[in-house]
């Protein structure tokens, strides 16, 4: 007892050396991974050049299916981007101590995946230069312009939000004096870790965390309005805004879990990304799965209740028609399997959460596809156009987008620590003390008799 009183909490040591290993040591596995990813990137370039030379005729896109898997990817990628900012910002604002080692990994997803979200729209254009028309001939009543605005703001905000907490870590890399000195010196902005700098940094991070939440919500709401502001059956649905936001956070957490599991395994970060992180994120994922189902149920049952002929036609195509396989796969992947796994507490471990996440990522992509394609293929004023199938060009461009996103992510981990070192340190030094002090105040006279 007396000994306990002297050392109130077990001292946590560690120089976090392992967090620098990914940057300073390069294994053969890294080169192999990069080579595989680069292969798909090259294939993407070949496919895109074909599309530019031959025109959109090489894709499966037709009239009226102008949007196929490119726009599906766009909605999906923007959705994944909600991982970072929202998860990390919400956890920061709620002072969730367990966030410390996962925020960076989440924020990087946001910044990287946004590039590909925006890029997906460009690939859907036969003349990519005409993308500028949105700005040159702005139509302020068009949700496309709103999209460009909100995604640009989001991108800017997310980069700042990623960069600010990175500064002390960059300074650490600069001071170690190993690789890329000039780069780290430039990016560290003269950080020397004084109290004033810390105070300003904390303030900046806090402000960004608050700003980024409404921005992220607005982004996916506006993305949903690209669909909902038309009068297309099953697109024009008032619930679309929050429905898309919920789906985005849902798929974002799943993507984050997969990223964390790979980082943990490859870089041996078991000490930093513990079971508890997966358990907590698994709980969040379970809640989001239920919420997603709530919205899906609300959307479809209300449409069923509304009983409008054009809407019912598309609803039936989804429930029983040619899209039914995809539709029910989505329900199973996004709801039945995840709830089945995550609903059982002892399965909320690394394997369980990763399995659920893998299904969710696929299921959420299917969800976006099922929203985009059937409504386009069956417009109000034209006879039904049958089913849309993507061509090899679209498939390779999509695969390339995924692989290049992963490549960028991998490269990030080669230059910057994927776990926020200073925040982990701060947690070890300050937060433990704070918790100890707080708990002490509850107990009238701690351990006096002992």
């Amino acid at each position, binding site marked *: 007892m007396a000994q306990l009183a002297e050392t109130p909490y077990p001292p946590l040591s560690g120089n976090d050396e392992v967090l620098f290993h990914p940057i300073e040591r390069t294994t053969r596995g890294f080169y192999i991974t990069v080579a595989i990813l680069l292969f798909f990137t090259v294939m993407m370039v070949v496919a895109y050049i074909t599309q530019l030379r031959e025109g959109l005729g090489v894709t499966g896109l037709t009239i009226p299916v102008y949007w196929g898997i490119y726009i599906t990817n766009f909605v999906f990628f923007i959705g994944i981007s909600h991982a970072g900012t929202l998860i990390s910002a919400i956890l920061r604002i709620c002072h969730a101590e367990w966030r410390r080692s996962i925020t960076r990994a989440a924020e990087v997803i946001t910044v990287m995946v946004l590039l590909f979200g925006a890029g997906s729209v460009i690939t859907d254009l036969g003349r990519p230069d005409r993308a500028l028309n949105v700005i040159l001939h702005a139509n302020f009543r068009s949700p496309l312009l709103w999209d460009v605005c909100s995604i640009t703001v989001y991108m800017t905000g997310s980069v700042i939000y990623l960069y600010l907490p990175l500064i002390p870590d960059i300074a650490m890399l600069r001071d170690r004096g190993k690789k890329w000195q000039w780069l780290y010196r430039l990016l560290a902005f003269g950080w020397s870790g004084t109290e004033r700098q810390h105070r300003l940094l904390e303030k900046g991070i806090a402000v960004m965390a608050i700003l980024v939440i409404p921005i992220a*919500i607005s982004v996916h*709401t506006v993305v949903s*309005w690209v669909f*909902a*502001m*038309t*009068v297309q059956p099953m697109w*024009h*649905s*008032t*619930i*679309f*805004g*929050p429905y898309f936001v919920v789906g985005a956070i849902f798929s974002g957490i799943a993507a984050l879990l997969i990223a964390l599991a790979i980082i943990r395994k490859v870089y041996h970060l078991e000490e930093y990304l513990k079971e508890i992180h997966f358990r907590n994120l698994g709980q969040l994922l379970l809640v989001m799965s*239920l919420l997603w189902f*709530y919205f899906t*149920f*609300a*959307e479809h*049952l*209300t*449409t*069923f*209740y*509304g*009983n*409008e002929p054009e809407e019912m036609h598309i609803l039936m195509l989804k429930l029983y028609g040619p899209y039914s396989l995809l539709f029910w796969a989505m329900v199973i992947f996004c709801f039945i399997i995840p709830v089945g796994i995550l609903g059982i507490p002892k399965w909320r471990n690394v394997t369980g959460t990763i399995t659920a996440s893998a299904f969710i990522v696929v299921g959420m992509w299917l969800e976006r596809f099922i929203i985009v394609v059937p409504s386009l293929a069956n417009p109000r004023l034209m006879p039904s156009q049958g089913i849309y199938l993507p061509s090899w060009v679209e498939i390779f461009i999509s695969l390339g987008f995924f692989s290049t996103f992963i490549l960028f992510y991998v490269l990030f981990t080669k230059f910057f620590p994927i776990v926020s070192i200073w925040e982990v340190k701060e947690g070890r030094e300050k937060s433990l003390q704070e918790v100890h002090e*707080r708990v002490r*105040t*509850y107990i*009238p006279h701690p351990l006096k008799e002992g």
Partner: protein
Amino acid sequence: MVPNDSEFRLRVASSRWIQVCMAIGLIALVGAGIADPSRFWSNLLLISYLLLGMGLAGTFFVALQYMSGASWSVAFRRIPEALSSALPVGAIGMLVVFFFHPSLYPWSQAASAEGEGLTGFKAAWLSLPFFWVRSVIYIALWFLLSKLIVRSSREQDLDDSPRHTRSSIRYSAMFLVAFGFTFWLASMDWIMSLEPHWYSTMFGLYNFSGLFLGGLAAIILLVLWISKTTGLRDFVNEEHLHDLGKLLFAFSTFWMYIWFCQYMLIWYANITEESIYYIQRLHGFWEPIFLLNIFLNWIIPFIVLLPVSSKRSRSTLAKVAIVVLAGRWVDLYLMIFPALHGQTPVFGLWEIGSIVGACGLLLFFFQRALGQASLVPLNDPRLQDSLHYHN
């Protein structure tokens, strides 16, 4: 040390004015019943739905705290628990409307023009027997789970066992899932089907956002009142008020987000079948009420609660909560009355009387429920955390 037992029971205060309120409400309803039966039924529907919502919001708040493992709110948890006693009161009012005057809903009369237009699933869904069965199931489910949550919390006072917290968490999970799905259906059945040809996928969520916003305002007012007049004052401090203020601010903004998503999409698409709903509500004297709704539910709370200091001030919080509660009534008035009373808004003695009566009923049952257990859940394992809570 936490002092024990009886001094923390609420002495059922001189509740003369609560009785007066209830009497006024009764007179207003009887008066309306004789003078203008159609307004009697609309007011009964509105007030019952409002009270039911208050009860549900109380239970929802408690369930949410259990599920998220929150400790800050334990000190005043008995307030939302007692608020849930409004649930059966509102439910009885709703059932009276459904069983004694179903003709409030145009679809219930096959002969009416509206009723004939329904086909397929909608015709089956909107048939009286099915409607009654569904309504009874929703209400029974909420009532049962709400009772279980409150009971296990009170039992902990007696035997100090943490197993009650565990069972509360289990009941809360069941309640949240059941409530989520059934409340959305209920709002569609009870309110949206007043205009059976109009539908919006957002409607259930919109109703939930209003329900919880109004419920939070009621919880804040009751916490302020009870912590001023009883021993609860030693347990509730600015930190708790600050968090309640934050929640009110957040859900006011959430309400606006949902409101805007629904309104903007319908306005922009301009499909006649849909926009008729808003055209009716923006017509003539309805328009100022339409705007008032946004002011009461969002603009005023948003601007006033923005600074930290106002979230920690008892008097500011109380004023904002009253504004939001008024907004809750106006919001429901805008959902129900244009459908039933058409061109011009009606507002008079019957409406004022029923509002006063509803306040009286709510407070009467709240006070009674609060008196049945200790004012603070003394044996809750998280109580100490709550008492030492810092923002």
